[in-house]
């Protein structure tokens, strides 16, 4: 086999893996969209917040220490403990559930039955707020996140492929972990939303808040639940991306990577997020590989969007999205 071909294969494989990472972020969007018809602009910031909280808890950082010190002139910074990753993750999940409760209590509850664009706006407000709170709480420094996930080239694949083709494939261990986790998440979420009572209720809520209320579905409960799950997904995404690049503000920008995935897969489809992610991942990597040099590179940012756009022209609801009901 030619080198060029092998390399293209490697690029494709890595594209698939990046796609999985995008999909992890997209999943959070899908969940909330499915449960309330809200396009949750704050999803990226939630990932950031979750990751910062996780690191903060692991390192025993005192929340709001900077603020406290500034006001009271104290000098507190650390509790002086170091928690193991798993415990910290559990605690972070509790925090995210608390966040979900707050969102429900202070935002969503008051906006039942409003138009999607207004709910979207509310999540923008939430994004601002959360970003500010995250900064106040944990500071803006870059921190290393290490919950013990393996990272770096996978030796086995490298050597096996080397043996087979004379060219060792590069696959990042972290990506493999991400793929496994994403697969588990997707399976669990699909089962949940498609086959359980709560899942059905969740989809009902997305269609019509009022009618859902009228049949006795408690929006409060559904939303706290869904936002908690979305918070958890955000945490997972935050861990993966945070492990790659350190925990810092830019984590909130990964949302931009998830949007074309969302479009392609369909806003309402959980498997769509994964398939969309894979297509976008491979698409942008291959495109950059083949045409990047010709176009001067850095095509990834727009290519994903243009691909998704072209695709939508043929299928306006994305690959697996619910059919957009057009009736009179």
């Amino acid at each position: 086999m030619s080198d060029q071909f092998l390399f293209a294969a490697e690029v494709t494989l890595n594209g698939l893996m990046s796609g999985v990472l995008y999909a992890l972020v997209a999943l959070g969007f899908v969940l909330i969209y499915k449960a309330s018809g809200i396009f949750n602009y704050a999803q990226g910031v939630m990932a950031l917040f979750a990751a910062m909280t996780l690191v903060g808890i692991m390192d025993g950082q005192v929340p709001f220490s900077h603020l406290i010190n500034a006001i009271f002139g104290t000098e507190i910074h650390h509790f002086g403990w170091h928690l193991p990753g798993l415990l910290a993750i559990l605690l972070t999940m509790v925090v995210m559930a608390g966040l979900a409760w707050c969102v429900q209590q202070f935002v969503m509850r008051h906006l039942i039955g409003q138009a999607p664009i207004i709910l979207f706006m509310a999540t923008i407000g939430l994004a601002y707020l959360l970003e500010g709170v995250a900064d106040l709480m944990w500071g803006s420094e870059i921190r290393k996140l290490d919950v013990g996930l393996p990272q770096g080239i996978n030796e086995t694949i490298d050597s096996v492929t080397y043996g087979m083709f004379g060219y060792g494939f590069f696959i990042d261990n972290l990506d493999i972990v991400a793929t496994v986790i994403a697969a588990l998440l997707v399976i669990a979420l699909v089962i949940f939303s498609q086959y359980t009572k709560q899942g059905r209720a969740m989809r009902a809520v997305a269609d019509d808040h009022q009618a859902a209320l009228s049949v006795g579905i408690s929006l409060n409960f559904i939303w706290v639940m869904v936002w908690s799950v979305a918070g958890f997904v955000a945490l997972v995404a935050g861990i993966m991306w945070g492990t790659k690049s350190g925990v810092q503000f830019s984590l909130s920008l990964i949302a931009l990577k998830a949007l074309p995935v969302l479009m392609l897969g369909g806003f309402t489809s959980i498997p769509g997020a994964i398939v969309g992610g894979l297509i976008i991942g491979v698409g942008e990597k291959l495109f950059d590989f083949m045409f990047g040099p010709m176009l001067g590179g850095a095509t990834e940012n727009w290519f994903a969007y243009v691909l998704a756009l072209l695709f939508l022209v043929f299928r306006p609801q994305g690959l697996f999205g619910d059919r957009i009901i057009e009736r009179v």
Partner: protein
Amino acid sequence: DLTIVDTSYRTGPYAANGIPFSDGYQDYFTLLNERDGGIGGEHINIVECETGYNTEKGVECYEGTKGDEPLVYEPLSTGITYQLIPKVTADGFPMHTLGYGRTSAKNGAVFRNIFNYPANYWDGASVAIEHILDQEGGDIKGKKIALVYHNSAYGKEPIRTLEELAKKHGYELSLLPVDHPGQEQKSQWLQIRREKPDYVIMWGWGVMNQVAIQEAVNIRYPMDHFIGIWWSGSENDVLPAGKGANGYKALTFHNIGSDYPVYDDMRKYVVEAGKAAGAGDQLGTTLYNRGMYAAMLAAEAIKTAQQIAGTSKITPAQMRDGMEALEMTEEKMAALGLPHFGPAFKVTCENHGGDGYAAVTQWDADAGAYKMITGYMQSDQEVLAPLIEEDSMAYAKENGITPGCN
């Protein structure tokens, strides 16, 4: 009182870099105030203005502070710099861009109010090649060098220089742009893995740095062949990659570490007195040092200006003259408690950019610190000077400026 404006960014995507720089910048002035009672008896009044690395907020900061007659602006953002170049020139304020901003501002005959000593991007590019030349025993013909750069005006700065130098030294340059913010660089690094360039030079900022270094570790690129510009050389950039980042190199135009007499004073008069601008935990980090260095250069310029003007209460215009007459010598730095902290240079009207000396540092993961591994090397003036001439003259023509030193 003399006013200094610190246009800082402690929020937004680049906060992690903005904070230590601003801390260092302010702390140094605080030190002078506390220890020496200011400069020439004048208390230094620091006005901080948050820009969030956003040009519009930068403009607002400028407009909001210019009434205070600040002596110098140090925006720490290439975008804001471009914004302010015409404005400060029209309003008569000097602006210092320390190792960033518009490279051709080195030509003081055109850019009367802009200073970018002691080194600029093109110097950086040249010194990086210089270092590679050293490593390779002076011959890099046919070697492959890749530039991984932030796809913005900032990142594109070195391309022209590197291309010129490629003609001279015969290496092959390949360009790998990374779009903002740079969270995803798989394709760039797979390409590097395939093409196996002998050296990788990086022009990054923010998260792009961390991801690039992590990816380099992942593909097991030899870290000592990976050289970042000084804005890709902070502790923040290597920490997330952990041990793997050991050996990563970055340029610098000032010294690193906190092993200087001035730091004792800094701890005593500023940190322990509770007067630090930040948490006081950044002393000795690369960016803190850079901020402090910028402040020190400003303070020295103020002194120079005071001497020239014969008054301690100088105006921005006098400050400009002071900056143009600034001379940094070893003795001066030693006297300040910062021996060998940066290269010695002398500013003139024709040369607002210093002599282009820079050094290479290397990350030692075990020690958790950068180490200087070379002395200060000068950039290839032969190649750079015409480039600067060309670019600044183009600017002069476009804006109807008659270059001249009086």
